[in-house]
């Protein structure tokens, strides 16, 4: 019988002859439990047989079927996951088939921790099994699967964490190579996808950086160029500005290197550029200006320069608090106080 047959019409385990040899173990709820759940007959039945299986330590094909049924009713039942995994290992079940089965469950229950934890265990086992000639195809297939899931929910935290874990764990140059173009595809669809920006940082400056990109000045130049281009397309995008700050701080590059770029975004009107400056792309015609993040950035440049330029920073913070970002007025006033206290 296929393991993933439809649960809905299935008989209760207590009505199935092939389970007659298992003694179901009822649950002890206590006399006055906190927040007891009104179980469905199917869930109550399946979990009683699960306790029955646990009590004898049975690890068999039918246990795989039972745990799958429970997981489909309650994907956060971590004991069912845990026991399922141990059963798979005990039976030496083909883990690639398990991954295939899990694909559908993962997409159905994207926001459940256990779905992703189980995949980590499976990939780790595939990696550690000496008989498997190479775990790299499995990891490559896994990257493709994650990409499909991210098409469904492009900001799912668990999915991104899992992708980052996979890349770090296998740490193979073939896995890292496609990551930047993958991120760029996602950012083309939604330039405000912070998870994609974060992943880019992880790939370029995190674990991925050893992989054939030894020429760091060249990498910084590429990243600055890419980020400036994205800012020019959508100036009021905190993800891109946070990334810009992140790469400058990471490479210890002074913010002031970007002064001429930032200046293009701080007036109320788009700047008139006589010559197209590819290094410093200007905001588009329809951009909402001035850009708050650019004003903040320019104020930081002034503050870092010190001396009489601190006053210029204070004027910008005042304009942010009074006019351009009134919601964060208290924050901008705090920046003024901090600057005055340290100057």
């Amino acid at each position, binding site marked *: 019988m296929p393991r993933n047959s439809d649960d809905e019409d299935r008989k209760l385990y207590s009505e199935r002859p092939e389970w007659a040899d298992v003694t179901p173990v009822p649950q002890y709820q206590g006399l006055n439990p906190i*927040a007891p759940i*009104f179980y469905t007959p199917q869930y109550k039945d399946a979990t009683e047989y699960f306790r029955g299986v646990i009590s004898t330590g049975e690890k068999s094909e039918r246990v795989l079927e039972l745990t799958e049924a429970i997981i489909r009713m309650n994907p956060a039942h971590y004991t069912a996951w845990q026991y399922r995994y141990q059963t798979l290992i005990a039976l030496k079940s083909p883990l690639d088939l398990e991954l295939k089965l899990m694909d559908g469950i993962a997409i159905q229950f994207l926001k459940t921790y256990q779905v992703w934890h189980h995949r980590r265990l499976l990939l780790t086992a595939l990696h550690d099994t000496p008989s498997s000639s190479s775990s790299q195809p499995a990891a490559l297939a896994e990257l493709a699967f994650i990409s499909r899931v991210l098409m469904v929910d492009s900001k799912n935290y668990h999915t991104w964490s899992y992708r980052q874990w996979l890349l770090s764990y296998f740490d193979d140059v073939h896995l890292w190579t496609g990551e930047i173009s993958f991120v760029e595809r996602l950012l083309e669809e939604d330039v405000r996808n912070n998870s994609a920006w974060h992943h880019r940082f992880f790939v370029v400056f995190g674990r991925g950086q050893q992989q054939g990109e030894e020429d760091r000045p060249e990498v910084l130049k590429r990243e600055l160029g890419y980020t400036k281009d994205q800012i020019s397309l959508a100036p009021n995008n905190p993800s891109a500005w946070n990334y810009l700050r992140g790469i400058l701080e990471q490479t210890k590059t002074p913010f002031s290197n970007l002064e001429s770029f930032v200046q293009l975004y701080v007036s109320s009107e788009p700047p008139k550029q006589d010559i197209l400056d590819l290094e410093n792309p200007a905001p588009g015609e329809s951009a909402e200006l001035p850009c708050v993040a650019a004003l903040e950035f320019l104020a930081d440049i002034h503050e870092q320069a010190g001396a009489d330029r601190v006053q210029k920073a204070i004027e910008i913070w005042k304009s942010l608090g009074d006019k351009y970002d009134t919601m964060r007025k208290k924050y901008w006033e705090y920046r003024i106080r901090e600057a005055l206290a340290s100057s």
Partner: protein
Amino acid sequence: MPSQPPPPLPHFARTGHAAHCNRCLTGLPSSQIDVDAQTLAVGFYCLGTLDILGLLESKTNEVERKDWKEWIWEQVRTGSYGTGFKPGSYMTPESKSLSETDQFREFDPPHLIMTYVALLSLAILRDDFSKLDRQGITKFVRSCQREDGSFSSLPNSGDSDLREVYCAFAISSMLDDWSGVDVDRAIQYIRRCMSYEGGYGQEPSGEALGGTTYCALASLYLAPSSKHRDPGTSITPTERSRMIRWLVQNQTLEHGGFSGRTNKLADACYCFWCGASLHILGASPLVNSTTLTTFLSSCQFKFGGFAKAPNERPDPYHTYLSLAAISLFPPPSENKDDPNYEEWKNVSRIDPLLNATLETEKWIRRHVPAPSHYQTFESHEH
């Protein structure tokens, strides 16, 4: 430009919030089967709500409170891993002797996050903790710490990220016993979770996230001082500024509440996670409490409970965290002419590090550490 008066506050559904939580404590519908393995957490959010509203005594009776305490104590498990609380009875067999077998010790074990919420819940219920196996709990915490400094939720398995680090730190702080934690190694792990944006990801290299930023910060401030470490000093001034900037940026223009990540929508729970983080950093005046109040009041379901966002369904988790956020950031004085102002302000103050009302925190400090600790403490005071 004169600032606009804040929008009127709706009626504060105080008794409705209590009723929502009382209903959940009594039972949950079958559509909630997915919380079967975290019942104690649901219980904590419900009891915490009643506590923060000051309604535990009036809206529940003594028999119920006694029963709940007994039930929580029934979740205690002891094994080679030490002692802790399991999430509920979802795996517990009817037969007591069966539940004491190795099989069930392994597959119905204590859980680190649930041990934290169990201690908080018992304190809310003013348990005297005479049944607490303090050394066993410390041993359990120790058996959950991993090589990289993080903690797993179960002995030798389960998730391990900043949530479990926080629970290990909070438990050790409550017990006033840190012998179960290699603090330096745990702090190294926390530091590896810091993101370029300023907040902490859930695990190393993760995207900055409100909830886990709270876990990291609260842990660093709960950590005991030592010769080479004062509370909070694991954060450099630059990191602190960057963190404050990121947290403040998460208060969204669109709705006035906090989002958990850059460019995401506001969610009631992040009003607590980000707001409490700013509070811990001593930067709570930087929160715009006007828009925060407007947002949280729009998440209130008029018959009781809070939802993550307007027009969504309420649940105990968002109800408790919304109230905890209101406790830290009550409506500002601009609202004081509003007829509902006093009602919205009338929420107990909380301790942001343990996430409990000040009264409950006091109870914890007095009753959870080993009695000898407390005597020493008292004799110092006299």
